[in-house]
């Protein structure tokens, strides 16, 4: 009853309409009665009405005053509650400090992790109305793919142009592709991130330049003469000192001079979330100046999926409608170009999702969700501890509550008071938590891998983050405050008198609230620790995964001869000289040049065995290719299984040959001898003979299933992108600079990039796994400590409450062992229930994480067993200490007490 009344009052602030309606009716009736009276006194109706109004005064002012009487009261109560809460919290200083600090820890961790999730997953791209932007990808039902995640594949420029012409659902479609370009003309040639885009790119995104202009609509139509560039805000600020006169200046990119015509808006770095902030945009008509090698050769090939396409939906069109419409265009294109487009259609992804990577978005979300889940568990345990503290405090305040309730305070009023206290605690925790997050963010940022650079990710404590922290603070304040508050606000006078507030043992019947806390804390800690354990195992496994080559004493550097417009003859000579010079340096054992980075993937082409092609019903397989010089296998120490590796006798004019890995042999010729077999690429008659089979190496990502890979001689399949790899006899660091300058001396305009040991490179690849394991371990240990403190606290409290009972038992002859068993048994039983619940929860949840783990089952028995054992040991300890104290209760003192 009192609750409904109080709710009415609380609700009054939001129900002013109802109050107004009542008042209106009342005022009308008042005026009517006054008029009746005036009429009786002989006034005419007009006079009577005027007199009544005059006597009443200003009706709307009355309504205002009445309404504000309600609102004023509400705030008045709030301020009284707040003042009282502050007094209580200051009075219990120790309790408040513990509460605020543990909450701050929970909020701090949550906010830190949310900052990252916010920056990577939730930050909208800085473009106009991003929800109307959609990415278009090719999906291919015919070609076989061996890589995980290869579903959405980009689009060929030729197909893009047809889609753009025939499209009816987008206002327009734009295309882009990323390519590193060499910026020369300064002291040292350097590489910058380039985007090759259609001229409408910025218009479709709805952007306005900070200075200058974006591309004119026809600036992608004159091959080789649209020498205009737009640069990113960061590039303008860092390299041009934000000079307004940068517009009109010239940049030498891949040996072609471009005029800077515009500066992109601050924070815009293309349509991807994590990207270098220093960017330059050029138009597609300049492709022959920008690209070299296969990228130039195949640019207009209808099968070459090198472009990323996005469009802005017309008003009123949603993604499924657009997809249906585009699929009909795709089937037309499939019919029109059956050879290139067979089995190929189109799939749509919102650009906001695709910004993280159309194929990777789900995994990123899962990882982010898992981290938030882990810190959420820590927070929940911290809350459970606080609820326990509040319960203990509530027991001490039982008298106060009884008195206040006797003085007429309604139950809802008391509830509101207690909730005000817990919310105040929570908000104080949030304030300190934000400080921790500010600090934690810097620590996290300082551990980032070297490939994530300044400006790549914006880890700001923006309004999203602040709202998030405020949100969890309010929710948890209500959550951990509610249980004790409900319990306390209904003091049972009879019980209080009878038991003197004591005699609570732990156990379901005696004290369900506290028992529940023990069970919940144990269960949550188990879930957090299982997560941590799985990731530690996964990371250990990942460290020990054999990449298939020897990664120690190996370093690399990369350059692009295409940027300097070398022809193939000159480039081959350059490669030979570079290898010769590097090999001559003391400390160098072998040097080689390949097209791909180690573990860096590479160009994939569709492979068919001899006698098969796309017309025979055979499904070709997209296979990673790597063009290498003869010393490649010796340098990386990739073991030869059968046949031979390349030699200098493999030249352009000799038989085309290939060395393949075991995975490729097994994929195309299962159960057969692959040596001597021949294969060809899609739409290319040239047959290549398998002359050697080597062991598998990791092609793209540590932990992947063995991927087919074909090595081709650099002399027969030239690649202007080159990765120098050098095997050293001693520590690689000592010879890196000598090799670098010997390569640089061949051409001072060469931009040499990615100078690093292969060990560093592999470490970067495992960065996420390592960071994940470290963070989860930290969270797991925090969860364990908090839970142990919680269980210990509950039991200690219960021992204190049971002093009298224990004293009587002792006086009646119970031995220390009996008391120990009694008290510890109470706690352990609850802990065991918690462990069982936790195991069930962990089994249910960790399955979802399977895709993030390397070589560990999500229900790994060793992890589950180990974690259970650890928690059991900790629970034993947390129960033993208070139980031990119980055995030391002196029966005489305990009985006298009161």
């Amino acid at each position, binding site marked *: 009853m009192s609750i409904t009344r109080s709710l009415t*009052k609380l609700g009054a602030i939001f129900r002013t309409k109802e109050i107004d309606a*009542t*008042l209106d*009716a*009342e*005022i009308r*009736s*008042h005026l*009517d*009665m*006054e008029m*009746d009276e005036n009429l009786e006194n002989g006034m005419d109706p007009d006079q009577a009405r005027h007199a009544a109004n005059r*006597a*009443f*005064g*200003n*009706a709307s*002012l*009355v309504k205002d*005053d*009445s309404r504000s*009487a*309600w609102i004023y*009261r509400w705030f008045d109560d709030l301020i009284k509650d707040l003042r009282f809460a502050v007094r209580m919290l200051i009075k219990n200083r120790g309790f408040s400090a513990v509460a605020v600090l543990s909450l701050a820890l929970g909020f701090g961790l949550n906010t830190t992790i949310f900052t990252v999730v916010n920056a990577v997953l939730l930050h909208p791209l800085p473009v106009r109305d991003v929800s109307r932007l959609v990415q278009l990808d090719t999906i291919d039902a015919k070609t076989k793919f061996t890589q995980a995640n290869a579903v959405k594949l980009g689009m060929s420029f030729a197909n893009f142009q047809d889609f753009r012409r025939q499209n009816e659902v987008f206002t327009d479609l734009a295309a882009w592709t990323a390519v590193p370009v060499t910026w020369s003309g300064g002291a040292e040639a350097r590489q910058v991130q380039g985007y090759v885009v259609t001229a409408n790119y910025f218009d479709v995104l709805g952007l306005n330049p900070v200075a200058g202009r974006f591309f004119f609509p026809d600036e992608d139509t004159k091959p080789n003469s649209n020498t205009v560039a737009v640069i990113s805000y960061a590039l303008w600020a860092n390299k041009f000192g934000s000079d307004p006169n940068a517009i009109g200046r010239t940049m030498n990119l891949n040996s072609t001079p471009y005029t800077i015509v515009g500066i992109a808006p601050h924070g815009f770095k293309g349509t991807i979330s994590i990207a270098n902030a220093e960017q330059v945009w050029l138009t597609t008509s300049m492709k022959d100046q920008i690209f070299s090698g296969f990228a130039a050769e195949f640019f207009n090939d209808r099968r070459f999926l090198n472009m990323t396409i996005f469009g802005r939906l017309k008003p009123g069109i949603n993604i499924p409608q657009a997809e249906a419409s585009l699929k009909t265009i795709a089937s037309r294109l499939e019919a029109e170009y059956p050879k290139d487009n067979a089995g190929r259609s189109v799939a749509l992804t919102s650009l906001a999702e695709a910004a993280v990577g159309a194929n990777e978005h789900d995994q990123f979300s899962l990882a982010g969700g898992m981290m938030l889940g882990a810190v959420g568990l820590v927070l929940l345990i911290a809350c459970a501890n606080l609820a326990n503290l509040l319960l203990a405090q509530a027991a001490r305040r039982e008298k106060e509550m009884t008195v206040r309730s006797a003085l*007429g305070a309604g139950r809802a009023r008391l509830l509101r008071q207690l909730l005000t206290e817990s919310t105040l605690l929570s908000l104080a925790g949030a304030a300190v938590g934000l400080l921790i997050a500010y600090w934690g963010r810097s620590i996290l940022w300082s551990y980032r891998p070297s490939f994530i650079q300044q400006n790549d990710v914006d880890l700001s404590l923006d309004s999203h983050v602040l709202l998030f922290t405020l949100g969890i603070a309010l929710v948890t304040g209500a959550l951990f405050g509610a249980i004790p508050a409900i319990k306390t606000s209904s003091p049972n006078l009879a019980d209080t008198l009878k038991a003197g507030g004591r005699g609570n043992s732990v156990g379901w019947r005696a004290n369900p609230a506290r028992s529940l806390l023990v069970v919940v804390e144990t269960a949550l800690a188990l879930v957090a620790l299982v997560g941590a354990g799985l990731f530690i195992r996964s990371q250990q496994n990942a460290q020990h995964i054999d990449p298939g080559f020897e990664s120690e004493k190996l370093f690399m550097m990369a350059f692009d001869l295409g940027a300097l417009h070398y022809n193939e003859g000159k480039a081959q000579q350059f490669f030979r000289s570079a290898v010769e010079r590097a090999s001559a340096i003391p400390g160098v054992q072998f040097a080689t040049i390949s097209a791909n980075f180690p573990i860096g993937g590479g160009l994939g082409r569709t492979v068919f065995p001899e006698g098969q092609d796309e017309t025979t019903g055979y499904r070709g397989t997209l296979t990673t290719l790597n063009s290498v010089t003869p010393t490649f296998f010796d340098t990386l120490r990739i073991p030869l299984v059968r046949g031979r590796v390349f030699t200098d006798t493999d030249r352009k004019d000799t038989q085309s040959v290939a060395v393949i890995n075991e995975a490729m042999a097994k994929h195309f010729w299962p159960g057969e001898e692959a040596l001597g077999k021949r294969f060809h690429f899609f739409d290319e008659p040239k047959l290549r003979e398998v002359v050697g089979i080597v062991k598998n190496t990791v092609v793209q990502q540590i932990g992947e299933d063995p991927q087919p890979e074909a090595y081709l001689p650099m002399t027969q399949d030239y690649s202007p992108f080159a990765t120098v790899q050098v095997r050293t006899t001693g520590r690689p660091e000592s010879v890196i600079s000598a090799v670098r300058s010997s390569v640089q001396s061949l051409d001072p305009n060469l931009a040499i990039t990615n100078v690093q040991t292969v060990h560093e490179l592999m470490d970067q690849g495992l960065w996420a796994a390592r960071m994940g394991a470290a963070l989860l371990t930290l969270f797991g240990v925090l969860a364990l400590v908090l839970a142990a403190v919680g269980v210990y606290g509950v039991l200690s409290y219960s021992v204190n409450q049971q002093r009298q009972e224990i004293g009587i038992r002792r006086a009646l002859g119970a031995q220390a062992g009996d008391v120990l068993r009694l008290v510890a048994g109470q706690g352990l039983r609850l802990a065991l229930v918690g462990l069982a619940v936790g195991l069930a929860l962990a089994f249910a949840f960790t399955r979802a994480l399977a895709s993030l783990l390397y070589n560990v089952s999500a229900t790994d028995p060793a992890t589950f067993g180990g974690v259970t054992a650890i928690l059991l040991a900790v629970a034993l300890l947390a129960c033993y200490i208070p139980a031990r104290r119980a055995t030391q209760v002196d029966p005489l003192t305990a009985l006298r007490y009161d």
Partner: protein
Amino acid sequence: MAPKPRDPDRLEIMQGTLDLIILRTLRWGPLHGHAIAKFIEQTSGDTFKIEHGSLYPALQRLLQERWITAAWGTSTKNRKARFYSLTAAGRKQLSAEHSRWERFSEAVARILTAPRAEEDV
């Protein structure tokens, strides 16, 4: 709202006093707003200037303190009206306020009628 000319013979009632007066008028049973206004005007011999409207915010305040409750009913002239009645807490409040008021007015009266006190030098 333009300020109204003051009538020097009629007094304005302070908020706390108005509350006391309203509680007092309800002592013998439920009344609606109009009746309360008339009662105050008549019993004070028109000394108190009371704008009828000013009763209503005061009534809201008393409702919130739960000194009075309200219910819709029918007036003697058969008009729908909201009737206010005292609660038990309101009755207690009335007697407490009443004795406070008496002490207050006695004290004021004593001060106003006291002979001139001897001043310290």
